[in-house]
């Protein structure tokens, strides 16, 4: 009986931990005219932090309906943040470099 009660408490604690998980900052590097990583699974409340490690300018752009964002030009060495406030699948492009792609899946 005691073991069962302890197990139940553990389940409740894990559920509370999962639902109350703190939002995370997920770093995306822009080097060699690529996003790294190129696929991300995130949760609502997380933020993507784009770090331009490249020697070129970049410009984060999301053309997905419901998620459209243009973060503007990022010079080498700069950072830009994209809060993820809505669940869904979105695609990140670069205005300057049409072959740069990042797929993001945002869960509730």
């Amino acid at each position: 009986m005691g073991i069962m009660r302890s197990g139940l408490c553990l389940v409740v604690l894990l559920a509370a931990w999962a639902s109350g998980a703190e939002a995370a900052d997920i770093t995306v590097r822009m080097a060699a005219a690529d996003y790294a990583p190129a696929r991300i699974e995130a949760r609502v409340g997380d933020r993507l932090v784009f770090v331009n490690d490249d020697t070129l300018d970049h410009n984060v752009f999301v053309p997905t309906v419901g998620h459209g964002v243009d973060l503007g030009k990022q010079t080498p060495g700069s950072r830009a943040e994209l809060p993820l406030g809505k669940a869904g699948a979105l695609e990140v492009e670069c205005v300057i470099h049409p072959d740069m792609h990042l797929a993001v899946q945002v869960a509730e």
Partner: protein
Amino acid sequence: MRHVLPLALAALVLSASNAAAGPERVAFPAGYRESFVRYLDVDRPDRKTKRFFYVNPEALEVATAGAPLPDGTVLIMEDHPVELDGEVPRRDAEGRFIAMPEITNVFVMEKQPGWGEAYPADKRNGDWDYAWFDAAGSLKHSDPARYDGCFSCHQSRAARDFTFTFFKYLEDLKR
């Protein structure tokens, strides 16, 4: 003499066509907010603006995903300032910026047959031309040189008929 007149007319038409290249030949789409279809909103944090994207319904009706956009396509990018908390843009329940009613810019790109012929190959954006209006429909800049940035930036999306959003929108709809 019989051959001179047609040649002169052709030269005149060609000259007029070349002279008209640029923003002056892109008409302001009066009433677009009622008659066009708004297909995308884009938040622009660095400028504290929100952009609404529109397409004319005639083009939307016949445009096909993955194919060059039809002649007569008119695309609009409309800028709005956003609501602020101090210096920080306010967000709605889904994390999106909240546009103010004021319209600060109306950028129009229009595609018509032969329009691109006026431009050199290294500048040409298919048969597109560009214009930048205020909310009342007056051109903000009539000097074609002010639009070089439009042409060079949209070159990166040559594979999407020189559009950043509408061609992609059609492809996404198809999924």
